[in-house]
C-alpha cells in the first residue's frame, strides 16, 4: 500500500520505519535536502524534497495513487493544509498531527469533518493518557486499553519478592481464581505465550488481560497492588505535562510541575490554576529534595532531553519514589535505560507509530475482520490486536477447543456487547464480537490468520 509521510522529524522517521516493517511503499516528503539524503541511505523509500502543502510537490510524490497521507510536520496548520489538499487531489485517507491544545478542544471535530481528516493524532495527548492510566494502576509497567475501555492488558514486572515466582501458571490459576488470563511472558530477549506448564520466574514481564473493573482487585489478590498515585511530581512543562496535569487535576491529586523556563511557568500558571508550578532547574538535586521528592508517590520526567529524563529518573528511583515514569524517545536509549533499572519508559514516537501501523493494517484489510486496535508489546516482540468479527467469519460454528491455532497465538479476550469474556475452550467466536488476540512472531491481517 502506498503511503505518503510528510515531515520527517523524529515522529516522521519513527512512522516511516514502522510502516516499512509492515511492508508498505513509503514516499517521504520534507523540505530539508540533507534530511532526505540521510533517510534515503537508511530506509528503502522514495523521497521528494519540497513543501508538503505545495500541490506540485504532492503530485510529484504521487498523491493521486496514495491510500494514506500522514502529515507530521512541526506545524499543525501545515499538516492540516497538506491533508486537505491531499484529500482533494485524490488520497483516500489522511492523518494529521494536531498538537496545539487550542485546536484540541470542541473545534477539533468540526475541523476534522471540514478538512475530511480520517484521523487527527496528538502524540502528546496520547502519551499523557497512557501515563494517566499507569498512575491509576502503578503496579503496571504499561497498560493498553481495548475498545469500550472495559478491557485492558497490564504489563507487570515480577519483582524478587513476588509470590508468583517459581509457580506454574495452572497453580497460579488455582490459587488465585478470577476472571483474568496471563497471556504473554517476556523473559530477557524472548517472548512466550505460556501454557499451564509454564513456570514464572523473578524478573519476568507478564501481560495480564482482564476487565478494567476487576484489575485492581486482581492485582491485590496476586499481591502486586500498589495504591494509585496521589502526589505526583512532573519535570518539564511540556505539552504532555499540560495534558497530564489537566487530567490529573480533575481528581483529588496533588500535582507539582518543575520547569526551568520562566515564560513557560507563567503560561502554565494561567492554563492550570490549581496546579503548583515551581520555577527551577530540575537537574538540580537539591531543588528536587527541597520540593519533597522523597514523599512523592510518583515522579514523571517529561523534559525534551532523553538523557536528562533518564538520569533524573534514576535519581528519583534512588530516593525511593515508588513509581518513576520517564519519557525516552530514542529506541536505543530506551533499551539502555531499561538496563539501568528504569521500569516504565514511555515513547510518544512509539505510541504514534503503533497507531499508524494498526490504521494502515486495517486499511489494507478492508474486507474480512477489521483490526480495531493494535499494540506492540514486550519491546515490539509481540502484538496485541483487537479484531471486529464480521458476519462471514468462517469458524463461528466451532468452539475454541475445536479450533487449532497457530503456534504462539492466544485468544485473550472476547467482548460481546457489554459482556467481557475471558475465553475458555467452550467459548465461541461469534459475528459482532470483538476478539483480543496476542501473537508473537506473526503479522496478522485477519482474524482467520490465527487458525492453522
Amino acid at each position, binding site marked *: 500500500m502506498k503511503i505518503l509521510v510528510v515531515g520527517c522529524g523524529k515522529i516522521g522517521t519513527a512512522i516511516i520505519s514502522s510502516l*516499512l516493517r509492515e511492508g508498505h*511503499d513509503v514516499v517521504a516528503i520534507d523540505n530539508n535536502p540533507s534530511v532526505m539524503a540521510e533517510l*534515503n*541511505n*537508511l*530506509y*528503502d*523509500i*522514495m523521497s521528494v*524534497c519540497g513543501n508538503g502543502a505545495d500541490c506540485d510537490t504532492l503530485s510529484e510524490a504521487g498523491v493521486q495513487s496514495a491510500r494514506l497521507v500522514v502529515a507530521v510536520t512541526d506545524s499543525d496548520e501545515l499538516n492540516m493544509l497538506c491533508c486537505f489538499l491531499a484529500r482533494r487531489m485524490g488520497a483516500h485517507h489522511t492523518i494529521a498531527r494536531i498538537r496545539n491544545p487550542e485546536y484540541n478542544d470542541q473545534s477539533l471535530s468540526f475541523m476534522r469533518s471540514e478538512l475530511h481528516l480520517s484521523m487527527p493524532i496528538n502524540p502528546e495527548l496520547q502519551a499523557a493518557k497512557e501515563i494517566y492510566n499507569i498512575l491509576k494502576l502503578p503496579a503496571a509497567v504499561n497498560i493498553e486499553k481495548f475498545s469500550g475501555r472495559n478491557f485492558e492488558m497490564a504489563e507487570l514486572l515480577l519483582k524478587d519478592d513476588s509470590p508468583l515466582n517459581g509457580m506454574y501458571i495452572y497453580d497460579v490459576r488455582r490459587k488465585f481464581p478470577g476472571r483474568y488470563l496471563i497471556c504473554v511472558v517476556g523473559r530477557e530477549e524472548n517472548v512466550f505465550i505460556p501454557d499451564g506448564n509454564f513456570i514464572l520466574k523473578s524478573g519476568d514481564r507478564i501481560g495480564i488481560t482482564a476487565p478494567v473493573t476487576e484489575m485492581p482487585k486482581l492485582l491485590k489478590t496476586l499481591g502486586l497492588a500498589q495504591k494509585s498515585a496521589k502526589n505526583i511530581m512532573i519535570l518539564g512543562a511540556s505539552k504532555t505535562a499540560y495534558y497530564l496535569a489537566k487530567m490529573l487535576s480533575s481528581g483529588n491529586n496533588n500535582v507539582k510541575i518543575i520547569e526551568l523556563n520562566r515564560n513557560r511557568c507563567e503560561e502554565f500558571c494561567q492554563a492550570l490554576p490549581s496546579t503548583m508550578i515551581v520555577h527551577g532547574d530540575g537537574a538540580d538535586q537539591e531543588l528536587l529534595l527541597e520540593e519533597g521528592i522523597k514523599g512523592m508517590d510518583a515522579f514523571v520526567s517529561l523534559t525534551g532531553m532523553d538523557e536528562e529524563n533518564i538520569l533524573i529518573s534514576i535519581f528519583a528511583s534512588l530516593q525511593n519514589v515508588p513509581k518513576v515514569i520517564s519519557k525516552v524517545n530514542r529506541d536505543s536509549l530506551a533499551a539502555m535505560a531499561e538496563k539501568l533499572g528504569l521500569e516504565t519508559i514511555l515513547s510518544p514516537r512509539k505510541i504514534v507509530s503503533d497507531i499508524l501501523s494498526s490504521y494502515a493494517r486495517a486499511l489494507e484489510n478492508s474486507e474480512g475482520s477489521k483490526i480495531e486496535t493494535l499494540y506492540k508489546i514486550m519491546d515490539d516482540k509481540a502484538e496485541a490486536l483487537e479484531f471486529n468479527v464480521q458476519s462471514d467469519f468462517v469458524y463461528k460454528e466451532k468452539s475454541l477447543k475445536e479450533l487449532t491455532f497457530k503456534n504462539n497465538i492466544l485468544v485473550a479476550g472476547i467482548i460481546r456487547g457489554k459482556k467481557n469474556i475471558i475465553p475458555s475452550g467452550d467459548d465461541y467466536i461469534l459475528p459482532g464480537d470483538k476478539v483480543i488476540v496476542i501473537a508473537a512472531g506473526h503479522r496478522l491481517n485477519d482474524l482467520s490468520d490465527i487458525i492453522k
Partner: protein
Amino acid sequence: MNRRMILHTAGKTALIEAVLLILPLIVSLIYKEKSAVAFIITIGIALILGALASIVAKPRTNTIYAKEGFIIVTLAWITLSVIGCLPFIISGAIPNFFDAIFETVSGFTTTGSSILRNVEALPKGLLFWRSFTHWVGGMGILVFVMAILPNVSDRSIHIMRAEVPGPVVGKLVPKVKDTAKILYLIYIGITLTEIVLLICGGMGIFDSFIHSFGTAGTGGFGIRTDSIASYNPYSQWVITIFMLLFGLNFNYFYLFLMKKFKPVLKSAELWTYLGIFATASALITINIYPSLNNLSLAIRQSCFQVASIVTTTGYATTDFNLWPTFSKGIIFILLFLGGCAGSTAGGLKMSRIVLMFKALKRELQKALHPRSAKAVLFEGKRVEEGVLNSLGIYFILYMACIGIIFLILCLEREFDILSNLTATITCINNVGPGFGAVGPASNFADYNWFSKIILSFAMLMGRLEFYPIILTFSLSAWKK
C-alpha cells in the same frame, strides 16, 4: 564490515550466472555445436562455487552500509567476468585466459572491444553468450538480483547507486526492488521490440537477437568482421534509432508510460543529448558528403556512427578512421560524452556535462560580479553545492585514470600514441572502437597480456564509475 554478506552476494551472482548460461546452452544445442559441453561444465562450476559461497557465508544480518555496497558490486562483477570467460577457454575458441577475460569484461561492461581477429569462426552458442553478456551487463547484474530475489536488504540502495550509471539514482517507486523490476521490464520490452523490427526487415532471427542485445546494453559486439555495414539500410536505421533510445534515461520511459510527458519534454539532459546528436551528425554529413557524393548514404553513415559513439555502443557501418580529420575530431570528442544518466550507456553522461557547464557559467559570472548569489538549476531544481563539488572531483578522477592507464599502455613499443590514447579512452568510456590500430576495422588482439588486463580493469572502472573499484582495492576499506 559485513563480510559474510559480501561473499554471500558474490555467491548469489554466480548462481544467477549459472541460470543465465542456460540460454546460450540452448542455442548451442539448437545448432548442435560442441560448445554445449563447455557451457555445461561452466554451469556446473558456477553452481558449485555459488552454492558453496552462499551456504558457507550465510549472513547473520543483511544490514549493509555504503562501504559494503561498493565492495559487493566490485566482487560481483569480478565473479561474473571470471566465470563468464570459462566457456571461451573450455571450448577452445579463445584458449588464452587473458584474451578470454578481456573479451568477457568487454562484454559485461558493454564496451564491445574485441580481441577476435575472425569473429565469424566462433560457434553460434559462444557468439550468443558473448552478446548476451552485453544485455546482462547493460542494466546491471545486481539490479537483476534485486528484482528477482526476495529479502533484499533495506539499504540495497547502496548497491543500486554503485551499479547504475549516473551521478544520482532516482527511484521510480518507493521500493528498490520494485524500481529494479520496472527497469528490467522496460529493458526487456524495448529489446523485444527491436528484435521484432529487425526480423521484419529481413535480418535473420539469430542475427536480430545478437544485434538487439548489443544495442540494448550499448555494447557493440557484432558477428561479422565489418560489424553492421553489410546489413540493409532499414536495419541500420532501426539500430540507429534503438541505440539512441537505449542511451536515454530509463526514467523517461517510465514517466511516458505513466502519461507524465511534461517532465520528460522539459528535461535539459534529453535536449542536450538530442542536440549533440543532431549537430554532430549534421557536421559530419557536410564533411564527408564531398567524398561520397551520395546524400542519403552520407546522412545514414554519419547518423549511425554518431549514435553509436555517443551512446558508447561501438557498432560501425564504415571505418571512420578513413574520414576527414574534422569528422574524426568530432568522433574523438564524442568518445567522452556518453548517454544520459540512468541509461545503459557508459562515458561521462550528459547530466554531468550539463551540470559542469552550468557550474562553469556561474563561476565566470561570479568573476564578473563577485557578490552575485546564483544557484545552479537542473531539471527545475536547485543543485546543492556538495553535488557540484563531487562532480568536479569525479571529473578529476576520470581524467587521472585516463592519464595513468594511457601511460601504462605506452610501455608497449608496438603502438603509436593515438592508438594507445584512444584505446584507453574507448575502454574507460565503454565505447568499443578507437582510432589508429584500434579503429572499427581492427581489434585489440595485438596488445600483450599485461595491457589486456589493464584495459579490462579500465573497462570495469568505467562501467562502475571508478569509486567501487578504487575503494575495493584501497586498504582503508578493509580496515576494521
